[in-house]
């Protein structure tokens, strides 16, 4: 991933341009102070929300603004449920030494110059922002201390800070940050290298349980999400595309649709040839959402499917079963002599497979676009607002500063909103009107026009030697390509993939089958399926060796070491061992269990996070699986917000379980066969296990927790089902293998 060229650039500005600041914080008024991002009501257009920022505000960088009235911290990145609207400002507040209850958090608008990368993905937010956010808080604190030192005519080293206050202990004098803001604003901004950061032992706020900054608006139903956007004279749109990806409009009964009650206009859009942007289709624009949706029932489109997807999951599965008998043409890695080792050891084989799945983020795709005054103004729930901005500029031939993107809270992302196709559609539709237009996808659109998590197949053979250790590992990974020889997103496999570094004779080959329907990043891409395959097969080998899986895994990890010395984002076997032991101990690994009950253990390293999970499972005579409890051991370095971290772990486990039990999208003739939640089951509360999260607070750099607790879940549960029943689970969802 691309790194911000200079992460400190935002702090090297010596004096803030007040006019630029005013422009940027124009939305920082009214409702925002109550913690509501863009509370646009019909009576109150967004532009009327602008309130001038105080000219005497102390704003030493893009994140901190202090006036006599309060402390504001700007949250730069999209909030999609991963908690960064709370955790990022907490990092600033920690180094600032602001009392959390004194802080007002405002979602920043998009500005790459001020904030660098503003995006949600790859669990990269926290590790990327950790130092810049700490430095932003520390610089502000440094200047407030300097202002107090000047006022009191004492040396700054005599001063300390606590709860938004500078303290001179020798004389007992105190000044609040609010009182100091005006004087601090006149001081030069120091170089970040001249400012001391706290030692982690001095943290007061980080690691505590802090509630989300939007909790009150959320529980009262206040407008927060993209779909909640309301503007004067708003029009409502729906967009109908060919159900087989890539089909084009041959003809449509546009004139009849235009006559329907409530319909304002209907028209055909040509695609721009890029499925990540604009596919061909028919737009219907109406006076309310229901009129637009209802008009779809009358719309008749003849699709030209000559270039459309013909994908069929039944055909590709049949082909994969044939291919599994051979090795793949593409060699990913070939260490040692796998064939010799297989011949000499005790062999185990297994064919693993997993289905395509949908993101099913609960807020349907939507964007509100308003073309006015030469500006395309957007309210979009997106994981990649900066890419949305540049894409829109290219799409309708504007400069980037003529495209304004308001970051709206997103009702789930999971990778789906990394792609801004709905933004492109909304913009091209809205460009034809002088009124704002909200485009809302139906759930059926979301199900059919997803960028799916790719399915895949693995033919594995391995062996254990006389000592019960893995002597050989061979995997033929059968996946998909959109063409050009590259695997689809989520369909690639690294040569260093776990357990490769621990096995001398290790061979992975790959075959790619053609596939047209777009695939995309889905929570912990690649890891979310490879973890299932490899961690289950490891269990097959430990079972073949007659060894306890905990003992086997710990032996595999060996002595504490970095697998890539000097890379703090590499797997560290000591950290792995610690979380494996922690999860096992807390779950009561090794205890006697009644018939039909089992424990399963899996470890997986992804996104620089070391995470082990133990699932306790009951299975009845009808093969009905109940996951009773999941125990998780986590090492992601320091914890920013304990409440948020625990929530992410619990949610990832539930998501992993939901997906493995019964989620699959199948395709025939390029069409997704599942159209809505009656055919695509999301886990409901009666099947939700208790999830216990245990954290090791380590001294290593922090990493994100939006994704890495998901991959270990499926193998932990599958291994537990084997423990309970003696039957292997090699297929996801498990409902496709007869489990209920």
């Amino acid at each position, binding site marked *: 991933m691309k790194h911000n060229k200079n992460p400190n650039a935002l702090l090297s500005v010596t004096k803030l341009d007040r006019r630029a600041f005013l422009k940027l914080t124009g939305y920082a008024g009214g409702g925002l102070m109550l913690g509501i991002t863009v509370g646009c009501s019909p009576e109150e257009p967004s532009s009327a929300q602008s309130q001038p920022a105080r000219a005497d505000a102390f704003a030493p960088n893009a994140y901190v603004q202090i006036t006599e009235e309060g402390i504001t911290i700007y949250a730069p990145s999209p909030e999609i*449920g991963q908690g960064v609207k709370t955790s990022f400002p907490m990092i600033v507040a920690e180094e600032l030494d602001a009392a959390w209850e004194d802080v007002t958090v405002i979602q920043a608008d998009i500005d790459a110059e001020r904030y660098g990368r503003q995006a949600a993905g790859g669990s990269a937010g926290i590790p990327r922002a950790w130092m810049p956010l700490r430095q932003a808080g520390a610089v502000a604190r440094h200047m407030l201390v300097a202002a107090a030192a000047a006022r009191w005519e004492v040396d700054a080293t005599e001063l300390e800070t606590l709860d938004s206050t500078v303290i001179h202990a020798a004389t007992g004098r105190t000044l609040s940050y609010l009182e100091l803001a005006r004087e601090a604003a006149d001081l030069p901004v120091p170089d970040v290298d001249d400012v001391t950061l706290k030692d982690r032992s001095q943290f007061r706020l980080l690691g505590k349980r802090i509630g989300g900054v939007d909790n009150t608006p959320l529980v009262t139903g206040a407008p927060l999400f993209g779909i909640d956007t309301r503007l004067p004279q708003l029009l409502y749109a729906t967009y109908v595309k060919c159900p087989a990806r890539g089909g084009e409009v041959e003809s449509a009964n546009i004139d009849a649709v235009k006559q329907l009650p409530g319909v304002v206009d209907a028209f055909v859009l040509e695609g721009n040839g890029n499925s990540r942007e604009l596919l061909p289709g028919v737009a219907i624009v109406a006076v309310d959402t229901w009129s637009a949706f209802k008009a779809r029932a009358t719309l008749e489109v003849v699709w030209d499917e000559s270039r459309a997807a013909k994908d069929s999951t039944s055909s590709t599965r049949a082909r994969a079963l044939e291919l599994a008998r051979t090795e793949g043409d593409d060699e990913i890695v070939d260490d040692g002599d796998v064939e010799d080792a297989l011949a000499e050891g005790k062999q185990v084989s297994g064919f693993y497979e997993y289905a395509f799945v949908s993101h099913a983020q609960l807020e349907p795709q939507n964007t509100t676009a308003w073309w006015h005054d030469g500006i395309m103004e957007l309210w979009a729930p997106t994981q990649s607002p900066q890419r949305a901005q540049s894409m829109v500029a290219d799409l309708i031939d504007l400069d980037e500063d003529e495209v304004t993107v308001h970051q709206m809270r997103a009702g789930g992302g999971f990778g789906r909103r990394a792609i801004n196709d709905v933004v492109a559609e909304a913009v091209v539709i809205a460009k034809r009107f002088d009124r704002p237009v909200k485009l809302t996808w139906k759930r059926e659109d979301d199900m059919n026009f997803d960028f799916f998590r790719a399915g895949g197949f693995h033919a594995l053979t391995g062996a254990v030697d006389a000592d019960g250790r893995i002597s050989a590992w061979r995997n033929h990974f059968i996946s998909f390509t959109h063409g050009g020889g590259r695997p689809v997103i989520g369909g690639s496999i690294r040569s260093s993939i776990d357990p490769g570094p621990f096995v001398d004779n290790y061979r992975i080959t790959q075959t790619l089958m053609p596939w047209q329907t777009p695939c995309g990043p889905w929570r912990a891409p690649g890891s979310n399926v490879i973890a299932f395959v490899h961690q289950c097969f490891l269990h097959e080998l430990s079972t073949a060796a007659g060894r306890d899986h905990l003992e086997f895994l710990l032996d595999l990890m060996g002595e504490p070491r970095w697998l890539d010395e000097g890379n703090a984002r590499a797997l560290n076997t000591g950290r792995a061992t610690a979380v494996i032991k922690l999860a096992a101990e807390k779950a009561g690994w090794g205890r006697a269990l009644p018939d039909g009950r089992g424990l399963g253990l899996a470890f997986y390293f992804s996104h620089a996070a070391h995470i082990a999970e133990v699932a306790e499972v009951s299975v009845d005579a009808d093969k009905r699986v109940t996951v009773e409890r999941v125990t998780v051991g986590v090492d992601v370095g320091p914890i920013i917000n304990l409440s948020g971290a625990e929530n992410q772990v619990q949610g990832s486990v539930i998501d992993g379980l939901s997906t493995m039990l019964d989620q699959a999208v199948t395709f025939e003739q390029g069409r997704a066969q599942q159209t809505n939640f009656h055919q695509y089951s999301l886990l409901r509360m009666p099947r939700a296990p208790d999830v216990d999260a245990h954290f090791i607070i380590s001294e290593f750099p922090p990493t994100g927790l939006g994704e890495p607790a998901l991959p270990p879940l499926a193998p932990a549960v599958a291994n537990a089902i084997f423990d309970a029943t003696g039957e292997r689970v090699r297929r996801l969802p498990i409902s496709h293998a007869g489990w209920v």
Partner: protein
Amino acid sequence: MRLNVNGQDHEVDVVHDDTPLLWVLRDHLGMVGTKFGCGIGMCGACTVHIDGQAAFSCSVRAADLEGRAITTIEGLAAADGTLHRVQQAWADQDVAQCGYCQSGQIMRATALLEKHAKPTRQEIDEAMAGSVCRCGTYNRIRLAIEDAAGISHEA
């Protein structure tokens, strides 16, 4: 049509007499706390109360609700802004991740507690099965409901 929402009468003109309550609330009355998720009564994001019963507002025609008492998430807190105990429990337990389903979850939980002041865990699970949380916050939803009901948490 005339709808009673959160104790107030609203005169609403809609284009189609089969417009679901969900879209009348969101598009016509500007009450966007009630969410659109699936449109077929499978996800529960649109849950409101009709005469005190939890109902999918996406699957009921607004025109059929004249004379009925409709309560939405916006009507749950007291007039002075004091949160309903279920809302307060939700905030205290920091339930939400993305938060999109939560107004529907809160409406369903509130209806449950009106009927069963001290529900068992099984009663909670069964009553809440109509609302999906895609982020998987079920552990905390249980805790919040138990808090609101004054039930001590199971170990």
